Every structure is written in C-alpha cells, then in structure tokens.
C-alpha cells in the first residue's frame, strides 16, 4: 500500500518533470493551459497568476499533485473543454472492451497453456507455440487489419468500424460504460449493436496478448505436474480431469493473476492502435488524435491516467493474490 502510493507520487513527479523540461518558461506553460492560438498578454498573465506558474518549482509540484488528484488536468486544444471531461467520457469505452478482451485472453491462455503443458513436446504443444509466436511477433495493426478483412469485408458478418450503429440514438449516459448504460435503459437493439461492434477489437487485443499467458500457464503446469501431490492424487484414483482441476489449475492460477495485471498495460497500449483501425472512439483514439494535433496536455494527462490505472491494477492483483493463495492468506 505504501509502495503503491509512493510509486503514484513518483509517477506524477516524472510527468511533472517532463512537462517542465519541455515547457521551461511560465509563458509557454500558460499558453498550453489556455489551449488556443489566439490570446493576449493580459490573458497569459492572468493564467500565470491563477495557476501560480511563476512560483518556485516545489510549490508548483505540490499544486500539480493536488490538481491531479482533483482530476484537474487543463484544457484540450481541439475540443476546447477540460481534458478530464473528455477522458471521463472516453475511458469507460476503452476500459469496457479492454476488460472483456483481457478476460477472454486469460481464459484462452489458460486453455492453450495447460494443453501445451500437458502434451509437452508433442504436436499440440508445437502447434500452440507456433500460433502464439506468430501473434506475439505480429504488429498489432497487421493482426487488426487481417481480422477486419476476414470478418467485416470478406465474410461480412461483423461491422468493420465504429462503436455502434451511427444511425441509432445512444441511450442516456448513466455510468459511462456503453454496454451497462444500454442494459439499464433496456435498449436491447443498441446493446446488440454495441456487442457486434466490440467483437473485432476484443479479438484483436486477446489474440495479440494471449501468448504471454500461454507461456506462463505452460511453465506452471509443467512445474505442478512434477509435484508430489499430483502423483498422490493419481494414486488416490482421481481421473486426469479431476487432477487437472484440483491441483494443476488451482496452483497455476497464482502466477496468472499477477500476469493479468501486467497484461492490462499491454492491452491499453494495444488499444491505441486497435481503436485507430476500428475507429472505435475511446481513450486510445483520443490519444491518437492528440498526437496528430500535438496536444501536449491531452497526451500527458492520458499517459498519467494510464499509469495510475496500471498501478491500481497491480495493487488489486496483490490483494487477489492473497485471496487465491492460501499460503499468503495464513500469514
């Protein structure tokens, strides 16, 4: 807990430092805060005064830290609204499909990894290894493009881009998560449209990342299979499925939890490219737009938010770890 908080503060400090290396003068900083191209000297001075940009660096850092924890990041240059408002709109969209993708990826990885581990150095193992090496080395944009071509343009079973059918009226925003909102409002046609548009981005992220889960799952399956308690389970007369479920699965899950938190970061990074290809307007698409329009405030805020969410994900993983592993729970 203490470590997580120190890491969080360190993260904010690093981003703060980067901002100050790039924008060394209060004037340059104020221009970014205004977020436009037309402004007078008086406006700049007012902003400098308002945000305390001419104060000593440590005072500014404290202010920045307080601002960050209040969700006050600055104004977006393209949309002319606070960055936090936009991120609040875009983050749930990305989070929703990324979480579904991670669940799918972990399930897929657990399956392929344990198959590869049980049939080690035989045909299933080789096939799985070839598959995940290719998806691992494949640029995410190639994977996404191939999926888009196969399912949307060739088979024509899924829509090629957008979050939902643009002709439909989206339901009222309650939680911000489109699927949950549609379900609360009972707007099932829209819910269905959301799901259909989500399949391809989810598959792209899940395929891009399942290799790491497979590797870890395979290694821990092999580790567990050599343990004495597995031999004992066979001697007690359990079937191979029962042995797998009771010993291998439960013990291999422990490293998978830590890994899932780690995958979260990779998946978010993958989402930047995937959202651009599928024009899936979430946080990744927003970050891509900001890089095109050179919007420093938006880029840094997104970076910071992603960093914070990864630290939180790791923290949750640590807690889950204690829940699943009885050895940790006993202490």
């Amino acid at each position, binding site marked *: 807990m203490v470590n997580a908080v120190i890491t969080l503060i*360190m993260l904010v400090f690093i981003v703060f430092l*980067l901002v100050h290396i790039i924008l060394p003068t209060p004037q340059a900083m104020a221009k970014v805060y205004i977020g436009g191209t037309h402004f007078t000297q008086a406006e700049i001075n007012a902003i400098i005064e308002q945000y305390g940009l001419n104060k000593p660096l440590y005072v500014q850092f404290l202010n920045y830290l307080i601002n960050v924890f209040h969700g006050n990041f600055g104004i977006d240059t393209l949309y002319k609204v606070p960055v936090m408002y936009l991120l609040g709109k875009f983050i749930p969209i990305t989070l929703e499909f990324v979480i579904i993708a991670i669940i799918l990826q972990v399930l897929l990885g657990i399956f392929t990894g344990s198959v590869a581990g049980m049939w*080690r150095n035989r045909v299933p193992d080789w096939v799985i290894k070839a598959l995940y090496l290719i998806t691992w080395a494949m640029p995410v944009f*190639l994977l996404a493009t191939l999926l888009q071509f196969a399912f949307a343009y060739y088979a024509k079973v899924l829509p090629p881009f957008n979050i939902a059918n643009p002709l439909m009226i989206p339901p009222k925003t309650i939680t911000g998560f489109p699927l949950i909102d549609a379900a609360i409002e009972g707007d099932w046609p829209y819910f269905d449209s959301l799901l259909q548009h989500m399949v391809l981005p989810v598959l792209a992220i899940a395929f891009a990342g399942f290799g790491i889960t497979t590797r870890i799952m395979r290694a821990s399956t*092999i580790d567990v*299979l050599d343990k004495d308690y597995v*031999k004992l389970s066979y001697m007690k007369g359990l079937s191979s499925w029962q042995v797998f479920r009771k010993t291998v699965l439960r013990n291999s899950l422990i490293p998978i939890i830590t890994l899932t938190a780690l995958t979260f970061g990779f998946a978010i990074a993958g989402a930047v490219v995937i959202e651009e290809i599928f024009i899936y307007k979430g946080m990744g698409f927003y970050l891509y737009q900001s890089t095109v329009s050179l919007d420093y405030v938006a880029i*840094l805020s*997104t970076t910071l938010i992603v960093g914070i969410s*990864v630290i939180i994900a790791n923290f949750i993983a640590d807690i889950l770890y204690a829940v699943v592993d009885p050895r940790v729970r006993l202490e």
Partner: protein
Amino acid sequence: MKAVDLLKKAIGIRKDVDSFSKRVPENVSIWYYVIHDPQALIGLIIIALFIVWSIVEGSLQIIGGYLKDPALGWILLPHNPLAPPNAALSLKPPSLSYLFGTNLEGEDILSRILYAAPKDATAAFLVVGLAILFGGLLGTVAGYFGGWLDEALMRITDAFLAIPGLILAIALSILIGPGYYSVLIALTIVWWPIYARLFRGQTLTIKYRGYVEVSRLFGESSLKIIFKHVFPNAIDPVVAYAALDFGTVILTYSTLAFLGIGVQPPYPEWGAMASNGLSFFPGVWWYTLFPSLTILLVVISFILLGDRLQDIISGRLTY
C-alpha cells in the same frame, strides 16, 4: 490422453522427457546449442542476414550522403526507392520486375523495404545497448550499495514501468519533437528501467559470492569491484533477455511509425508504409501486407533465438 500416460509423465523425471537435452554433451559453448537447435538456428540465420544487409545498405547510404550522391544508397536495389511520383507505375501488382508491387507514388515496395532496414536495425541495437548501459549501471550500483539509493531507484523504475511502453514512447517523442532521433531517445527512456531491474536482481545474488567478498577483504574500492566483478557477471542472463527485446523494440518502433511518429516522409519506414497502404486494403493488398510481413519476419526471428537462448542460459531446456 490416457490417464496412464499422464501418470507416467507425472512420475518421470523432467530431464528425461526432453530428447534434446539428452543429445548434447556437457560443458559446451552456447553456440553449440544454438546451432544444433532448429528453432534458434532459423532465428539466427534471418537475424544475420538482416544485420549484414543493414550494415552494407547503411554504410552505402552514409557514404552516399557524404559524397552528396544519394544514388549510391540504392545502387544494390532493383529500383530507386525515393523515385519521384509516377502515375503510370502507381499501385502495380507484384510482377517479375516489381516483386512486391508498387505504392501510390509508383515506387518499388521491395526497394523501399530494403532501403528502410538500416534504420530499424540501428534503432533496435542502439536502444537496447543504451538501455543496458544506463539501466545496467544504475541497477548494479543500487543493488550493490542497497539502502535508500536502492529503494529510490526501485520506486522510480516502478513509476516508469507503470506506463505502457508504447504510450510513454508516444508521449515522449511528441514532446521532444518529430524525427528519427527523438524516437530513439524516447525508446531509450522507456527501455532502461527494465534493465535496471534485471541488473539489480543479478547484483543481489552476486554481491555475496566468494570472489566479491575476497576482493572486498583485499581492500579493493567499491567502484573497482562493481566494474571488475559484478557488472561482467550479471550480464549473461541479460543478454538472453536482450535478444528477445531487440524484436520488441523493432515492433514498438514500427508501431510508432504506423501512428505517424518517427522517420519523416520521403524516407521509407516499414510501419509507415503499412499505414499508408491500409486505406487501399484489401484491393491493393501488397501495399500494406509486405511491409507488415517484413516486420513479422524480423521480430519473430529475434523471438525464436531469444526464447531459446533464455531456455539455455537459465537451464530450463525442458520447458
């Protein structure tokens, strides 16, 4: 699979399962394993071709630039990769004279792929090399001295590692400004923390070994011990990891180029070429597919070799 087979496997000693580990004699160099393992050998051959080509093509480009004769840069290529736009040759499908087809400007895609190779190779080796240098020094020093220095470094690396590499690289290269070198700087800043962690872990196991204790007893300075004993001994497992990492750097580098960050247009770049071709996909499939497949081929060969090296060095051959 029958339960009996599973039982046999479960009771059997793990080393016996792998036929490969039985074939090799003890105490041979790493290269013996690499050359006798098909997976590692394929990776090594492709990497060797990639490196040799990059050196040849890269030096031709540098000499060409020095002699103010850019044509020297494509003397070995079938066509001029930077030819002026030619509508007559635009979007031609693969043929004998244009093996990978042509792009919208009528330039040969194969020539452009080959012309772009040196920059990718430089990026991979420079970024990983600098990351090993900076991360290695910081990690070794922190691990060796311990205390608050170690604690501070760990929290800094934690903070860096919390931001996904691609996103931090995007943010940094946009902040530094457009261009190839800003991407290299950004990638180095992204890459050093993981090596700091690796070296620190190694240092912690090395610093209590006999030869280090003896040097300390003989009154050697800490600096000398770090450079003479700790750093050289820590580097072995790191090399295996680095082999795998070259591929990851190339992947990130081309993904950045795909997003329009990095090498500026007329100069070709694999990711940028794939991105340009995307709007013509799937009708003009060769435009985006060949550059993407080149990235796949290079990255997978680094992974094939690195994956095997990691197994060999850490003695996990049976995995």
